[in-house]
């Protein structure tokens, strides 16, 4: 199994200090109220955002300890590769201070490459960028992307506009130049400088916010298609992480139908949107929706041509809503299982087929 959404983390931003530009270290140490912390959510999960058994023995943050991750995820589920996606570092893109945000991106990426990726052959990394300054983000991609264990560029779904906006184009161009997919992971919606997380503002409860998470991914998907990003960059691959999947047929049916009538508004969109999405976009499965019957889920998934090649399995370890591989595999149409559980990710990230991998140390 290849796990396309694994959240490793630092215990605090201070862990990144050795890799942080000295010009910004005081922000971490004494800035704000005794040290800057990343923007965080106004919604509270009453029993916590993390799996209750994922706290490492040292009492650190879930995801901060490699040995715990190895025991609970990598070895336990015989993971072939784990794509690391970080944690609230994604929230740098909603900070007000663009240069500080970019410095944190660099520090995080260096920490990821030097401290995490060398620990285990199974670990592959996602580099982050601060989207406030897209030209700087492109330079960061150029600096880091050549590392053999870096497999994608990661953006948050919470953003000031849809990712089709020309502001973001340098990021996509740099990723294509370096041969990496760009992933967007739900999160940061409604935080700090970001707009409210829904078209009706801020929901009151975490239950509402979490249920509506796919809405930000829908907005980006439609935005990227309508701005012609795939027409500009035929080699671009996008990965949408943790946004669920059953909304896709509805959005694509609407987009295709509307495009047929409104094509002249965006004449650069020359191919049926659903065909572009099928070719360019992949979706991670977690949290795979849970209707009462498998047949209901499969009917929805099979209503999109090529869906079996578009899905990538993910656990979301160590988050509270993570998916276990056997249960998800059992819900998929049989003919898709090999591809969704490993083949599609292996192809997208160009991962060599391998014997079950082991730790380097």
């Amino acid at each position, binding site marked *: 199994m290849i796990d396309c959404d694994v959240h490793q983390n630092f215990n605090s931003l201070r862990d990144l200090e050795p890799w942080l530009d000295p010009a910004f270290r005081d922000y971490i140490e004494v800035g704000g109220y005794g040290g800057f912390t990343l923007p965080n959510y106004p919604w509270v*999960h*009453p*029993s916590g955002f993390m*799996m*209750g*058994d*994922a706290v490492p023995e040292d009492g650190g943050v879930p995801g901060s300890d490699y040995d715990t991750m190895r025991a609970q995820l990598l070895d336990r589920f015989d993971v072939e590769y784990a794509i690391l996606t970080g944690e609230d570092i994604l929230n740098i893109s909603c900070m007000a201070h663009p240069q500080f945000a970019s410095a944190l991106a660099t520090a995080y990426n260096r920490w990821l490459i030097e401290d995490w990726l060398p620990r285990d052959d199974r670990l592959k990394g996602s580099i982050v960028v601060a989207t406030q300054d897209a030209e700087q983000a492109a330079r960061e991609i150029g600096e880091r992307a050549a590392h053999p264990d870096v497999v994608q560029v990661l953006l948050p779904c919470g953003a000031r506009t849809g990712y089709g906006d020309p502001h973001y184009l340098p990021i996509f161009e740099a990723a294509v130049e370096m041969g990496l997919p760009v992933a967007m992971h739900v999160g940061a919606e409604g935080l700090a400088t970001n707009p409210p997380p829904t078209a009706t503002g801020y929901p009151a409860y975490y239950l509402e916010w979490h249920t509506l998470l796919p809405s930000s991914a829908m907005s980006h998907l439609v935005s990227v298609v309508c701005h012609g990003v795939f027409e500009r960059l035929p080699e671009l691959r996008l990965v949408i992480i943790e946004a669920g999947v059953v909304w896709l047929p509805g959005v694509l049916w609407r987009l295709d139908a509307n495009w047929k009538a409104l094509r002249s508004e965006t004449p650069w969109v020359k191919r049926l949107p659903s065909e572009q999405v099928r070719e360019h976009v992949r979706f991670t499965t977690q949290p795979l929706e*849970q*209707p*009462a*019957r*498998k*047949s*209901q*889920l499969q009917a929805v998934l099979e209503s999109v041509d090529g869906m079996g090649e578009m899905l990538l399995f993910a656990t979301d370890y160590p988050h*509270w*809503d*993570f*998916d*276990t591989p056997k*249960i998800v595999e059992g*819900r998929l149409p049989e003919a898709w299982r090999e591809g969704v559980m490993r083949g599609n990710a292996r192809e997208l990230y160009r991962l060599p087929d391998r014997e079950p991998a082991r730790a380097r140390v």
Partner: protein
Amino acid sequence: MSERAVAMEASLLPPGGRAKVEAFGTEVAIFNLDGELFALANACPHHGGPLCHGRISGARLPSDPYEHRWGRENRVLTCPWHGWEFDLETGRALFDERVRVRTFEARIEGDQVVLYRKTVNLAIVSEPDVCVHDSAAVRTE
């Protein structure tokens, strides 16, 4: 009729203690709450989460809108994975009492913790088309 299994030494399960043991061919989570023992299958019916790591507390009981009514103190076990809440005494989920975890009777006999399993207890009717072991999909008798 019930089957009996010796689970562990009682000294290893003091008040406030919890343990995971093998009994009746399955994993069982045992909790000692101030001398009262509770035992349940150590697998949540949702994704198989290890209930032995669950938090034990009360819960906000079903209430009227905007009312937060705390109750069942120390009788609610929350699965560490996805937060499904179960009543420790009945094993029934708070969101739907048709969903339940198998419970066992646990007693201290001498210096041993002993489990009892009723032989006619729970029949889970699991159909091949079940997506999640949830409300309408699983019937318990």
